[in-house]
């Protein structure tokens, strides 16, 4: 996987690190810094989680701080609610995206609204880590993109990192947040690597800020999580066609950064939303609507979506036909009505907006 657009920073102590390592480091640093942080879930103890993200935590902090729970997701999340009510900061691991569904009642009826229900008296500072998405050859129930369910529930933050640096920075920030955060970890990026300074992790933009991963002038690819590397690759490939594509990594679906997204679309005049989740009722519909409502007079073409098909997640031997890949992204870009007399925005205006929107 490529993370070529990660900005270069001081190179002292930098070495290749995987997203999985950065996540582990984030948990460890959070636990070391704050004794109220408790990690809990299925197999998170001696095993270190099925993806090894909690590797070593039980040994270092003890089983009271990194706890193997019974195998019951509603019970895990419900217990975490009670722990948060008593002042702890639980970090729950849901083993796989589709295994988180038994906890939905707790999530929707309690986690998302406890603060609101109690007029702020009982905030729930808890983080729900969900390894999510496909592309790892998982059998049924191991590859869902469940973000639309979470997005549709007010009171939750929904975060999805795409880079090693964000994996660390956004997880630290999620754990520190006084609101509940659904932290979606793109499974197929767990082993993606980037140069990273584990002893001095760099600051990243806060939750709620989208980041321009690649600047461009022809069209904006709006994406997040596992589709970010796909879009960056597509943008490189698009150069051969004469398109200079901008890639916006949303980083969090809630809060949604209208400002950065719309600033980009106003510059480029065209947009494609790319995600693995199914298109119908998926995040792309909301994003396309928001962009259209706010940027209508800047748009040269309808906002298009490249999403998973509207099918139950396919078996692993067929998943490559389902997942949005580079070709499908380029096909969508090709359909952005280039023949209709498109004229680029003024260069001066684009520079101003870029400065305001923040390119990281």
């Amino acid at each position, binding site marked *: 996987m490529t993370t070529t657009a990660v900005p270069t920073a001081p190179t002292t102590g930098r070495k290749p690190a995987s997203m999985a390592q950065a996540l582990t480091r984030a948990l460890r640093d959070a636990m070391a810094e704050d004794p109220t942080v408790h990690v809990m879930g299925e197999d998170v103890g001696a095993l270190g989680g099925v993806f090894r993200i909690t590797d070593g935590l039980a040994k270092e902090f003890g089983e*009271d701080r990194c706890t193997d729970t019974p195998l019951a997701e509603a*019970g895990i999340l419900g217990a975490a609610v009670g722990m948060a009510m008593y002042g702890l900061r639980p970090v729950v691991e849901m083993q796989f995206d589709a295994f988180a569904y038994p906890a939905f009642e707790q999530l929707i009826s309690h986690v998302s609204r406890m603060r609101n229900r109690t*007029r702020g008296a009982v905030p729930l500072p808890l983080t729900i880590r969900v390894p999510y998405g496909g592309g790892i050859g998982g059998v049924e129930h191991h590859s869902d993109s469940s973000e639309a369910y979470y997005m549709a529930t007010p009171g939750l933050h929904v975060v999805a990192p795409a880079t090693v640096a964000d994996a660390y920075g956004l997880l630290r920030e999620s754990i520190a947040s006084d609101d509940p955060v659904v932290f979606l970890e793109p499974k197929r990026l767990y082993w993606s690597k980037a140069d990273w300074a584990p002893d001095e992790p760099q600051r990243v933009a806060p939750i709620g800020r989208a980041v321009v991963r690649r600047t461009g002038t022809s069209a904006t690819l709006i994406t997040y999580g596992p589709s970010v590397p796909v879009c960056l690759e597509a943008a490189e490939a698009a150069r051969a066609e004469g398109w200079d594509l901008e890639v916006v990594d949303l980083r969090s679906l809630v809060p949604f950064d209208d400002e950065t997204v719309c600033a980009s679309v106003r510059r480029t005049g065209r947009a494609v939303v790319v995600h693995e989740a199914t298109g119908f009722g998926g995040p792309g519909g909301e994003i396309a609507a928001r962009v259209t409502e706010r940027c209508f007079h800047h748009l040269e073409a309808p906002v298009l979506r490249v999403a998973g098909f509207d099918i139950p997640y396919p078996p692993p031997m067929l998943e490559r036909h389902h997942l949005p890949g580079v070709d499908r992204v380029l096909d969508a870009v090709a359909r952005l009505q280039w023949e209709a007399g498109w004229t680029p925005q003024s260069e001066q205006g684009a520079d101003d907006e870029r400065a305001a929107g923040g390119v990281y």
Partner: protein
Amino acid sequence: MTVLEQPGAYRPTPPPAWQPRTDPAPLLPEAEPYRLLGTDAAAAADPDLLLKLYAELVRGRRYNTQATALTRQGRLAVYPSSTGQEACEIAAGLVLEDRDWLFPSYRDTLAAIARGVDPVSALTLLRGDWHTGYDPTQYRVAPLCTPLATQLPHAVGLAHAARLRGDDVVALAMVGDGGTSEGDFHEALNFAAVWQSPVVFLIQNNGFAISVPLAKQTAAPSLAHKGVGYGIPGRLVDGNDAVAMHQVLTEAVERARTGGGPTLIEAVTYRVEAHTNADDATRYRADSEVEAWRAHDPIELLEHELRSRGLLTDDVIRDAREAAEQMAARLRERMNEDAPLEPMDLFAHVYAEKTSQLREQAAQLRAELDAELDAEEER
């Protein structure tokens, strides 16, 4: 060649992990609901406790009738009455220390009040001006919980957290007979047992989940038996016997506080009123059944004991009734005032800080409210 085919690897019995690990006998509940009132053992009960329970039960009954009356006057959207179940409610509210936590269901307003929650604030949910009207952290009373049994894992987690922090805090979680069919009930019991959390689970078996009788809810020997499968001792109690309820709950709380782990208590009681004011109980049960339970009324049971000891003096009766009437009058008066509503609060506590989308929507509502005000001023 498999392992089992290797010489000497054959095991006639399964390895130890398959063996039962604990003796279930000590976990089994009483064969018949435990009761004190009407038995010789009642003589040992502290007279001050009897008088305290009596005053609270009378007040609780009056609260139930007053709240039901308020639904008819349109001052409450709905009220799930606990008439007939006051002994469970009051005992649950009284057995805890200040530092302990109560996790009530939507029918447990009385328990919350017995624990000190303001009677009007406790009705905020049912009046409909907000969801929870009191600060749960002030009274250590969790919000009245509507989704069945979902508050039970919270109680387990809170008690677990307290224990991790070295605090001798107990959580008492309340659920109904219908709620014992929910998955969260079972997950909560399992977590509590595995973690040996200081939790007491109190099931009020009032016979009905809205219209569905217990026989259609479970085939268990009793609801108290449901603890056994998780390694939790069950207790079966007469839920209309306030003294027995107080004793059994006190023992369970003490057991939890001293590291003995969770207890599951089934209080056998009866929902004398319909499920709520919106329900019609005549469609699914006979009047004769209700009358039989009215004859086993928690207040009358207690009065009988007090009378036999010469404690039910005219003064005691008058004081209890006067206190109850004063409470009811004050409740009526306060509930007849219109609830203060602040529409902008809709956006105030969704997140610690409003998202930009919520700021936009709040501005929209503000503008609509201002336009309404302007229109009113013009009229």
